[in-house]
């Protein structure tokens, strides 16, 4: 049983009468790597600031180890933060920046000794691969190096919880990937609870034990990366995590859904009979087959080479799908598709229904292609593909 470390209970926040967080209930387990994921402005930083003690929620409580800490100031919380902008102290060099927290620490009312401070700073410099940089001015460092100083400055205090606010946001792709691995390694070796904020879904999937998907100040879903990806709770989550085609459907009975007037087998159940639902189909779960064998038939209207795969846009009755395939399907060709039952995921309708999932405006490039006059041909074969 993992131990609960922090709990936000019915936390709400508003600025100038504008709701920014609405009734957040969330707990964080010890030694966990938890990611708050959501688009810009959804309230991720605000949530972190409440945990760090820089904001007081207008209602609700914050607990640390079972103790209510709403009124505990930031400097008394066993939490350290890596800020969205690194906020290194410009008047101090690398060593002094990292040592800042240690110089303030008291053990049984006594300051840490100079040798202890110095050995812990050098240990951190080693961990973040900045040996030899201790005398450097922080303003003379590259973005990646500043980032690592910020990490070291927080970690050296051995906090119980580390809050990271988009710590890799300013780095280039390559460095980002390296630092992701590095951060994950540090988290696993130190056993410190990481609360990580990002709006990059790939980063969240790659690093987290638990992902909390947020939108407009509300939690949309909490789960492991696999749960979030494979069983999104609503259209927003499905669209935000990975690519997805989101279609209107009607649930006939458990395991049977109607899309585009056809019935498809699926694995989900527990819906009311004939309930209107959102259906998610991931682009990689769609198999391209010969037109004659397709469950649905469509025309390829766009194609983009993505390295391993092609992204193709296929028009089914004016609704454009994204399909990922290794086969080359030229623009204009007619194809059939086949979807296995486990590739079809059913969600309840939500406030996000109808907002996402159509690839008509996938990109300018695709827009141009889809402008080409397209003849709508009624499909000959009717019938249900229940086999």
């Amino acid at each position, binding site marked *: 049983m993992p131990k609960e470390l922090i709990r936000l209970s019915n936390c709400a926040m508003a600025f100038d009468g504008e709701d920014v967080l609405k009734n957040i209930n969330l707990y964080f387990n010890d030694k966990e790597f938890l990611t708050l994921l959501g688009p810009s402005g959804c309230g991720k930083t605000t949530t972190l600031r409440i945990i760090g003690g820089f904001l007081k929620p207008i209602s609700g409580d914050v607990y640390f180890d079972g103790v209510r800490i709403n009124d505990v100031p930031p400097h008394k919380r066993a939490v350290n933060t890596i800020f969205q902008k690194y906020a290194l102290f*410009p008047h101090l*060099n690398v060593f*002094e920046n990292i040592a800042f927290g240690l110089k303030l620490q008291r053990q049984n009312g006594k300051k840490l000794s100079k040798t202890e401070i110095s050995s812990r700073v050098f240990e951190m410099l080693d961990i973040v691969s900045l040996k030899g940089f201790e005398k450097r001015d922080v303003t003379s460092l590259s973005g990646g190096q500043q980032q690592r100083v910020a990490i070291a400055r927080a970690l050296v205090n051995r906090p119980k919880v580390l809050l990271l606010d988009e710590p890799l946001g300013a780095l280039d792709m390559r460095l980002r990937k390296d630092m992701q691995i590095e951060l994950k390694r540090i988290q696993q070796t130190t056993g410190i609870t990481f609360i990580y904020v990002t709006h990059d879904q790939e980063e969240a999937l790659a690093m987290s034990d638990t992902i909390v998907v947020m939108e407009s100040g509300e939690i949309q879903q909490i789960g492991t990366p696999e749960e979030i990806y494979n069983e999104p709770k609503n259209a927003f989550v499905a669209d935000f995590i990975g690519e997805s085609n989101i279609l209107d459907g009607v649930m006939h009975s458990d395991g049977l859904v109607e899309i585009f007037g056809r019935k498809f087998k699926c694995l989900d159940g527990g819906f009311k009979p004939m309930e209107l639902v959102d259906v998610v189909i991931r682009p990689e779960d769609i198999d391209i087959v010969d037109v004659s064998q397709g469950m649905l038939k469509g025309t390829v209207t766009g194609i983009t080479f993505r390295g391993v795969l092609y992204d193709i846009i296929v028009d089914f009755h004016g609704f454009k799908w994204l399909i990922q395939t290794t086969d080359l399907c030229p623009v204009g060709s007619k194809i059939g598709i086949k979807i296995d039952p486990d590739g079809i995921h059913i969600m309840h309708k939500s406030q996000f229904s109808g907002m996402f999932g159509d690839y008509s405006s996938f990109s300018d490039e695709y827009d141009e292609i889809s402008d080409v006059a397209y003849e709508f041909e009624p499909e000959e074969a009717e019938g249900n593909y229940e086999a």
Partner: protein
Amino acid sequence: MKPKYFSIPYVGWMAIFVVAPIILVFIYAFTTPTGALTLRNFSDMGLFMPVFIRSFRLAFISTIVCILLGYPVAYILARENQRVQRVLFLLIMLPLWMNFLLRTYAWMSILENTGLLNQLLTALSLPPVRIINTEAAVVIGMVYNFLPFMILPIYSVIVKIDRNLLEAAQDLGANSLSVFRRLIIPLSIPGILSGVTMVFVPAVSAFVITQLLGGGMVFLLGDLIEMQFLGTAHNPHVGSAISIVMMLVVIAFVIIMNKFGAGEERTVGL
């Protein structure tokens, strides 16, 4: 239109009203009344040593008092919201809009033996103080007149300190006092340095204040120079020589202080 044309009037202005007087002072300092080159004007400088020392001492004291009074004001000002800041600014700037002489006369009537201050003390049945015509009165006058020039540069530096840095420090365990000591003070040193320059330099050469509040008892460099140019001694050649020596000392002082300050800024965190 090229922006550099706009600077022509400015350059001309500088040439006529700043550079020309300095050149004149130099010419005077190294010549005799008949126009012959000489170093004699500098030979009596030792005689004026006590005046030099007194001037620098009082300027130094005034500057320190300005820092002690001005820093908290600047700090409080920088933390207030925009509207309060504007009102407080107005209050700080208000005296500057009044004539310098009037301001100083006002202090005269406050500090006089039968002035406001002593009336107040008597009313509180405290013994009266004798301040007028002492060095203390001169220092009060200087502090009053130059304080805004200490507050403004410190304020403008503190107000620009990134709030994220303050939060980072708190996050790392700093209470308000530590944040102030380890972050705000070291980061505001550049503001203190320019404030010191802006107060110390005019304080060294102040002269009207000394006459009104010092009553001629506190004789400073400014008075000495004025006397050489306009007063009884009337020897602009010696006056120029004194001015040059004073200028050199002040320049040396500013350079040393900035060097010291730059070093201080780097090591203050240790």
